[in-house]
C-alpha cells in the first residue's frame, strides 16, 4: 500500500515537473552561451581586473596566418565587455633586435562582445627569443594596456605556409597562405602579401600577382591542370585564385611573385632541371 502511494506521488510529481518545464520555456533566463565555444582559447591575459581571452580555430599560435578572436571579461562583474576599442602589436624579441609582424586592425564582429583580427607570425619562438603581444584597449573612455608573452610554434605538420624573403627590388616581403581545407577538387586558394617597411611596419601590398604551380615531388613532380594564378581582390584585400589538387598527399605549391609591372620579384619556374621554386607553400592531406 505504502509502495503504491509513493509510486503515485512520484508519478504525479514527475508529471507536474515535466509540464512545468514545458510551460515555462520562455520566462527562464537563458544562460549566455560562449559564442566562441567551437574555438580554442589559446591565452587569457590577466590585467586591469580584466581577462582578455584570445581564441583561434587552431590549437596554438602558429607561424603563418592566424585568425584570432578576442573577448574581454570583466573579472568583477563576470560579464563580457561590449563596444571596446582594441589595438594590438605583437613583437618578436630576438637576441639582437625586435620586430613586429603583419597584422590587421582589431575589429568588432556581429556579436558585440567578440572582436576579431589576424596576425601573420613569421617565425616561432625559442628558448632565447619570444613573441610578446601588446594590447591597448579602451572601455567607456578609459584606456588600458596589457602585455603578455605568447608561444608561437611551427605548425604541427611542419608544412610551410608563410615565406619571408627579399625580392629583386631589394624589398623584404611576407607572403602567407590563407588557411584552407584542401580537397581533391578545384580549391579556392588565397594568400596575403605585405612588405616590411621597417621593423614595426608591414603595409599590405596591392595589385601584384602570384603565380602558382602545384607539384607532387613524391610522384615524379607532376602538376595539375586548370589552376588560376592569384590576383589581388580589393574587397577581401587578399590575393585569390584556384588550386587544383588531383589526389591526396603532399603537394608543393611553387610560387612566383610578380609586381604590377610583371617583373618577377621572387621565385622560379619549375622545369626538368629545376625541381622547385625558391618561393613555395606546402599542403598535405
Amino acid at each position, binding site marked *: 500500500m505504502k509502495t503504491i502511494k509513493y509510486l503515485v506521488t512520484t508519478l504525479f510529481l514527475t508529471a507536474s515537473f515535466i509540464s512545468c518545464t514545458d510551460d515555462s520555456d520562455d520566462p527562464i533566463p537563458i544562460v549566455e552561451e560562449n559564442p566562441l565555444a567551437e574555438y580554442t582559447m589559446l591565452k587569457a591575459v590577466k590585467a586591469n581586473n580584466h581577462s582578455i581571452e584570445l581564441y583561434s580555430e587552431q590549437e596554438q599560435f602558429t607561424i603563418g596566418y592566424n585568425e584570432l578572436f578576442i573577448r574581454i571579461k570583466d573579472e568583477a562583474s563576470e560579464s563580457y565587455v561590449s563596444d571596446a576599442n582594441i589595438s594590438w602589436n605583437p613583437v618578436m624579441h630576438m637576441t639582437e633586435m625586435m620586430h613586429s609582424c603583419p597584422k590587421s586592425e582589431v575589429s568588432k564582429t556581429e556579436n558585440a562582445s567578440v572582436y576579431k583580427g589576424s596576425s601573420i607570425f613569421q617565425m616561432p619562438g625559442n628558448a632565447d627569443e619570444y613573441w610578446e603581444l601588446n594590447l591597448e584597449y579602451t572601455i567607456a573612455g578609459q584606456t588600458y594596456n596589457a602585455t603578455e608573452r605568447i608561444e608561437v610554434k611551427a605548425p604541427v605538420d611542419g608544412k610551410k605556409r608563410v615565406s619571408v624573403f627579399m625580392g629583386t627590388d631589394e624589398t623584404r616581403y611576407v607572403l602567407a597562405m590563407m588557411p584552407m581545407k584542401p*580537397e*581533391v*577538387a*578545384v580549391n579556392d586558394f588565397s594568400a596575403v602579401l605585405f612588405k616590411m617597411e621597417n621593423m614595426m611596419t608591414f603595409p599590405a601590398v596591392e595589385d601584384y600577382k602570384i603565380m602558382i604551380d602545384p607539384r*607532387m615531388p*613524391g*610522384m*615524379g613532380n*607532376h*602538376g*595539375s*591542370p*586548370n589552376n588560376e594564378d592569384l590576383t589581388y581582390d580589393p574587397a577581401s584585400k587578399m590575393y585569390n585564385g584556384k588550386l*587544383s589538387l*588531383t*589526389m*591526396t*598527399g*603532399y603537394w608543393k605549391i611553387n610560387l612566383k611573385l610578380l609586381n604590377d609591372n610583371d617583373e618577377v620579384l621572387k621565385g622560379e619556374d619549375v622545369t626538368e632541371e629545376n625541381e622547385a621554386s625558391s618561393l613555395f607553400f606546402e599542403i*598535405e*592531406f
Partner: protein
Amino acid sequence: MKTILNGRPSRPKATGLKGKSLLLAVLCAVVFHWQSISQEPRVIMAKDSILPIDLNEVIVISSYKRTLEHNSHHKPLSTLDQYLESSKKVNLIKRGGYAWEPVLNDMTTERLSVTIDGMRIFGACTDRMDPITSYVDVSNLSDIHVACGQQGAEHGATIGGAIDLRLEKSNFRPDGWVGSIETGGETNNASQIIGGELNYSDEKFYVDTDIIYRKAENYVAGGGEEVAFSQFEKYNLSVNAGYKVSEDQKLLASFIFDEARDVGYPALPMDVSLARAFIGSVSWIQTDFMGDFKNWETKLYANSITHIMDDSQRPDVPIRMDMPGWSDTYGYFSQATLKRNNHQFLLKLDGFYNRSLAEMTMYPNNPNEREMFMLTWPNVRTLNNGFYAEDVIDFKGSSLKLSTRLAVQGFNVADEMGLNSLRIFYPEMAQRQTRFLKSFSARYHKKLKSVHLDGGLSYGDRAPSVSEGFGFYLFNSFDNHDYVGDPDLRNEKAIELNTKISVPIKKLNFSLEGNYFHTMDFIVGEVNPALSVMTIGAEGVKVYKNLEHANLYNISLDTKYQITPEFVWTGLVSYHRGTDQDGRNLPFISPFTYNSMLQYTQGKFSGSLTMRGAADQVNFNPEFGEDRTDAYTVFSLSLGKSFSINNDDVYVKTGVENIFDEFYSTYTDWNNIPRMGRNFFMTVSYAIN
C-alpha cells in the same frame, strides 16, 4: 537464327566460314571435327528454323556427347582464351599468359557486347586486365556465339559485335548421374590443369556441378627466354540447376564462382593479386505465353567482381601502388517469340544497373609523407533500359532479318570526391546524364542453288565506356600515356555494311566475307600537351575525344576441302584496315593473316597439323604506341585417340605447339611481349558412364 538457342549448332554453320590460303600452304583442322565424325551429333535443330541468315560463328567447347568434354579443340583443356583464339573472327590482345582481351572486327571491349548467357557483366579493372572471358572457364561453357556488328545487338548496344558465352546445361536429358575427370599438363609453362564434373539429370530436374583448377609458371618464349611475371593460378566452380514446374514451365538457376590469384602481366608494370567474380542468375522459361507469344524467358541476374592490382612482386618500381577496382551489375531480361505467317518475331526487354568504382593509392618513397589517393573510376552508376525486336521474314528461297534496339542509358557519378576530381577538368560537368541509344539493322539472305548470298546494312551507336567518360589518369603502358575521360563525349555511331558469299564446288567449299564500318564520332585518346603526366615515366596525357570519323574494313576468305573421307583441309586468310578521317592508321588493326590446317580422322584416331602466321604489320601508328610487328609463321601438331576401359570412355590427346620454337610476337601482343615457344601438352579425359 534461333536454332542455336535450342540445339547444339550444326556442323556446317560452325565451320563454313572462311579461308583459302592456297598459296600459303596446306594444313588445318576444323576445330570441332573429332566428335562430329566419330560420334553422332545430337543436333536438335529447332523445327521452326528458317534459313540461316546471320554471320554468327559458334565456337563449340563441350562436345555433343556430353560424357567426354572439351575434345573439340586441338588442345582440349586449353584456356577459354585459346578456344577463342581458334575462332575465325576473334583475335586476342595479350598482356601476359592470362586474361586475354577479345578483339572482334578490330574492336575491343568498349565497342563489343560481351555477355554470359545474355547477362551483362563488366570488368572491374581500369586497365582492361580482366575481360569478362577471364571469369568463366571451359568447364562452364557449351559454346560461344560470335556475332558481327549490329547482328550482336540482341544483348546490348554494340559497334563491333557481340560475344555471348553460353553456359553448359544438362537440360532435363534423362542421363542420370554422369561424372568425368580431366587432367592435363603443358611443358612450356609447367602448367597443370585438373577438372571434373558431376551432373545429375532426369526429365524433371537436373543439377550440374563442375570445377577446374589451373596453375601455370612463367612461360618461355621461342629461343629459350623466360618471360618473367607470366604465371597465373585460377580456379572456377559452377552449379547449374533446373526444375520443371510443369511440362512447359521451367525454373533455372546458375551460379559461377571464379577466382584467380597471383596473375602476372609481363607486358604491364603491375600484376594482379586477386580477380574474383560471383555470377548468379535465376530464370523462368515457359513455352506458351500470352496469346501467340511463345518461348517466354525471363532472367534476373547479379554479378560482382573484385579486381586487385598490385606491384608487390616487382623488384623495381618508381613508386609502390595499389589499384583495386569493383564492378557490380544487376540486370534482367524478358523475351518472347511470335510467329505470324512468314514472320518470326523476337521481342525483348532488358536492363541493367552497374556500379564501377576503382581507386589508386600510391605509397611515397619518403615514409614521412602521406599516401596519395585518387579515384580512377568515380563510382559511376550506369542504368540502362532497352527494348530489342527482330523479325525474320521468310520469302521463298530468301529471307530478310530486320532488327532494332532502343535504349536509354543514364550515368551518375555517385562519389563526391570523384565528381570534384573530374570537375578539375570539366568545371561545368553535371553529376547525371542521360543518353538515347539506337540500332537498326537489315540483313538479306538469298540462296541460289547451293550458293548462299548475304548482305546487310545497319546503324548503331554506343555510349562512352566508364573509362572513356569518367576515367581519371588511367595509365596505358602501350602508348605510355595517362588517359583522362571526357563526360561530354558524343555517342559513337557506326554505319555498317557487310556481305558474304559462300560457294560449294563439289568437295571444295569457300566463302568470302567482308564488312565495312564507317564510324562517326569515333572515340579515341588524343594527346593534350597542356596536361602534366601523373604516372612517373609517362610521356604525356591523352584525353578521350570524338574523331570526325574512322573507317574499318575486314575481308576474309575461308576454304574447306574434303580431300578424302579421312583428310580435310581448311584455310583462312584475312585482311584488315582501319584509318581515321585524315588517313591516319588506327591502333590494333590486324595485318594480313593466314591459317591453314590439315586434319586426319579415322575411327577413334585423329590428328591435325596447323600452320598460322601473319605478314609484316605495315599499317601501324606510333602515336598509339605501335611499332612494326614482323611476319611470323608457326606450326602445331596434335594427335588424339579415344578408347574404352571397363565401359568408360577415355580420351587422350597430345601435341606440340610452335614446333620450331619460333620467337615471335603479334600485333596484339601488348608491348611486344613474345609468345610462347615450343610447348608439349597432353590431356586425359575420363568419363564414368
